[in-house]
């Protein structure tokens, strides 16, 4: 017969503690000359430890699974804002509550005993003395308070390293010193660490609106827009009249709002291929810094050439007496996209969907396309690693569409700090499949030495080598080897959301070898990419992007011939639906 609900309640805690105290009891009994079973003692202690670890692991697992959902439903977001990796549902606070309840029940038993029998357990007298001593010590001047003063002084003197060290010592001595958490958040060098400290701060000070503002700001920097909005809303409830709080709340709402973006653009190359692109993007924010979206777009490409059945190989069956002024093709895309940060150092960009292509005078066909990117970066200035796999249709010309050109590629990139410089290296291996041809292998190796110029710019020296296994008649240029040496520079500017601009320029020399031929002479190779975004109102942002190449071989999409020039311009209008 068992009473109550075994496992639940304080009974479980009582027996866990009793089991963990068994070695002491056994030792006392043994010293008193009583026979004890050490095997049984060890067994019960092992069992208790196993149970405790199991409960802790379950709390951790459930925390990872349900903490985000609890965040949405709990009126108090303090617990909910705890980062997932810390979200153990079995909190020390819960254990403490269990201990206090158990202590109260045992105390009540002793009180009843005292009232009925006028007796009290000697061990309880010892416990009371211990508790009293603890209370005296707690109310006495804490060494943490002195340390906190020293840490504050170091913070005021802007001695960041000393201040950080002292604040860490403060919380080691007294985990309830909330100011130490806040200051550590300010001192943290990266946003994820800062967010963690501010979250600890609001656990201690859940009624401080500016603590919530700090959480919101850091969450926003980490693209955790939903969490940022929750924090700003909490801050606004606590300080409804503060202008900066309201401004931040408006900003948070805007960033977390769903967005639609009509897009349009044009691509033109030196072979006469011209592509018009139009469509729209839609996305909305998810918890954890993720955004989920979709893109519907159409690309119409023509090459300005009379239709040549021979050139289009055998797939295009055109009556010989038919005159067609230009050849055209179409690519429609329906794509889903998920972007976000699965962890503080990880960034995921997952795109996939359906592409529907239609070549000149033939039936449309569909294929799956995908682009998966996973990037890891330890810290802003630390090493980074990226792996990317993609499968895309080649639609640079009607000929390629007609020949159903598809590219599958795996890319690996590495970015390492080397003293004041950074080394970036990478490799790509892929295949291009086209109708009527054997699959063609494509390889690429990249190396660059980069000199960062502050946070906004860099200059670099780059070397690239590209090669194809064989020539192709499907509509893309496939030399056996392309070598490029280049000087590059990259710059970024932003004006607190009102505008943003980026510029990536490269100039160098390139030489290539066609299949079964020797390397040709070095020729100039130029490239450029620029983007600009302008906030026309808080909810309307206009974006434009342009890219251009002038080189014997351009490593973008599929160069259709040698000595290729290319220009692409696209524009979009992001509208956030509030």
């Amino acid at each position, binding site marked *: *017969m068992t009473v109550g*609900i075994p496992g*639940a309640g304080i009974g479980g805690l009582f027996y866990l503690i009793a089991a963990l105290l068994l070695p002491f009891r056994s030792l006392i009994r043994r010293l008193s000359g009583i026979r004890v079973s050490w095997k*049984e003692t060890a067994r019960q202690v092992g069992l208790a430890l*196993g149970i405790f670890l199991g409960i802790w692991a379950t709390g951790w697992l459930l925390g990872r699974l349900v903490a985000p959902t*609890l965040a949405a439903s709990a009126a108090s977001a303090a617990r909910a804002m705890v980062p997932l990796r810390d979200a153990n549902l079995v909190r020390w606070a819960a254990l403490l509550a269990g201990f206090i309840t158990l202590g109260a029940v045992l105390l009540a038993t002793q009180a009843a005993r005292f009232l009925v029998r006028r007796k009290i357990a000697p061990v309880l007298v010892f416990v009371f003395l211990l508790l009293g001593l603890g209370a005296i010590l707690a109310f006495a001047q804490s060494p943490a308070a002195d340390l906190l003063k020293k840490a504050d002084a170091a913070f005021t003197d802007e001695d960041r390293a000393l201040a950080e060290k002292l604040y860490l010592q403060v919380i080691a001595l007294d985990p309830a010193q909330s100011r130490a958490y806040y200051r550590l958040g300010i001192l943290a060098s990266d946003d994820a660490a800062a967010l963690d400290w501010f979250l600890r701060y609001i656990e201690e000070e859940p009624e401080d609106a500016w603590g919530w503002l700090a959480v919101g700001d850091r969450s926003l920097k980490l693209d955790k827009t939903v969490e940022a909005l929750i924090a700003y809303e909490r801050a606004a409830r606590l300080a409804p009249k503060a202008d900066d709080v309201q401004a931040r709340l408006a900003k948070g709402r805007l960033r977390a709002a769903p967005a639609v973006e009509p897009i349009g653009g044009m691509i033109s190359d030196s072979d006469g291929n011209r592509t018009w692109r139009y469509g729209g993007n839609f996305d909305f924010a998810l918890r954890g810094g993720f955004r989920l979206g979709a893109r519907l777009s159409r690309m119409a490409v023509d090459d300005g050439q009379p239709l040549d059945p021979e050139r289009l190989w055998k797939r295009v069956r055109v009556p010989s007496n038919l005159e067609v002024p230009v050849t055209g093709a179409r690519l429609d895309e329906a794509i889903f996209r998920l972007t976000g940060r699965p962890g503080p150092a990880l960034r995921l960009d997952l795109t996939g969907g359906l592409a529907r292509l239609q070549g000149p005078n033939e039936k449309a066909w569909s294929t799956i396309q995908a682009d998966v990117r996973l990037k890891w970066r330890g810290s802003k200035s630390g090493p980074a690693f990226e792996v990317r796999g993609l499968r895309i249709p080649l639609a640079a010309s009607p000929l390629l569409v007609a020949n159903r050109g598809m590219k599958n590629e795996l890319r690996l990139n590495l970015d390492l700090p080397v003293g004041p410089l950074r080394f970036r290296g990478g490799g790509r291996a892929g295949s291009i499949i086209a109708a009527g041809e054997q699959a063609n292998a494509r390889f690429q190796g990249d190396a660059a030495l980069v000199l960062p110029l502050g946070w906004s710019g860099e200059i670099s020296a780059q070397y690239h080598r590209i090669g194809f296994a064989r020539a192709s008649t499907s509509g893309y240029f496939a030399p056996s080897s392309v070598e490029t040496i280049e000087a590059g520079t990259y710059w970024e500017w932003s004006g607190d959301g009102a505008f943003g601009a980026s510029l990536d320029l490269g100039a160098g020399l390139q030489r290539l070898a066609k299949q079964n031929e020797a390397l040709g002479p070095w020729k100039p190779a130029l490239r450029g990419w620029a983007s600009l975004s302008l906030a026309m109102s808080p909810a309307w942002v206009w974006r434009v992007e342009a890219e251009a190449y002038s080189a014997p071989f351009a490593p973008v999409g599929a160069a259709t011939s040698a000595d290729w020039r290319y220009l692409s311009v696209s524009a979009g209008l992001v509208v956030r639906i509030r």
Partner: protein
Amino acid sequence: MSIKPRQTELPGPLIRKTVPVTVIIPAFNEADSIGDTIRSVQAQTMTPTEIIVIDDCSTDGTGDAARACGVKVVRPPANTGSKAGAQTFALPQVQTEFTIAIDADTTLAPDAIEKLLSAFVEPNVAAACGSVLPRRVESIWERGRYIEYLFAFTFYKRVQNEYGAPLISSGCFSMYRTEILRAVGGWSTRTLAEDMDLTWTLYRRGSAVRFIPAAVCYPLEPHDYRFLRKQLRRWSHGFVQNVRLHWRGLLEVPFLRSAVAVSCWDAIVASILYLMLLPAAALLFHNPYILLGYVIDVPAIVVPVLTGAWPRREVGKALVSVPSFFVLRTVNAVFFLTAVWSEVVRGRTFAVYEKGH
């Protein structure tokens, strides 16, 4: 009298030892199971001096079935109304130093009596009990009970024993020092949990109770809700009645007073939280995930259960049965709250002994 076993002249290759133990088996309409129970006692590595079946005015031929097994059968002039009544009726006929009480639907592991006897080496020990495991594990209730027993007899009861205070010497299989058993008046009918009443009475008179994990018995547990309901009503009301009866005396029994206080808290407050707070929070926050709180202590159950099941090679059976435990636990909580409400708040004592395994 010594508890040292003496050899008998039993024929056959197996030489058994007879020990100064009388086994009493109260039975009311147990014709189907009494034979198995008697045979399991007769097949012990140490056989008792006498087996007495108390046929409590059965109407299904229980007495005849027992007689056919070659044991002594006694029949009170009228139905005693409870297991305790039947057992106490037979107590004057016990002539041996030790008395074992076994339920009529319970069988014993072959060495159960031998193992249990070892507890009485300590002169202060008045009662000893062993591990209990359901003989049949098929229905959801039997599976739930199987897990409950594996859990309790692997963890709780062992800890209680290490602190010298098993909460209860199980009524389905326990051994007593006959002299002390007589001194306390045998099994009392004043509560519905006569085994708990007897155990706590023994503690109050300064005697010791021991739990021997290796002595295993296998009762039949309620197969369906009809029988389970009767059993849980008896147990829950019996617990409340015993707490009300013994609480002053238990204050003098170290560890037991704390264990009983904690059990009372869990039976009442934790049951309320368990049955009401979690669903209320889930509704309030519109979040069904809060109901996962019901299983957050799964490891607290599963770790001891698997530790107990592993040497028995029943890990698979245990894992399959774990979900049933959570159902049984919820039903348990309802019955205990009902019992507290009835016995304490309304002051209505439930005194009808309903047979339900």
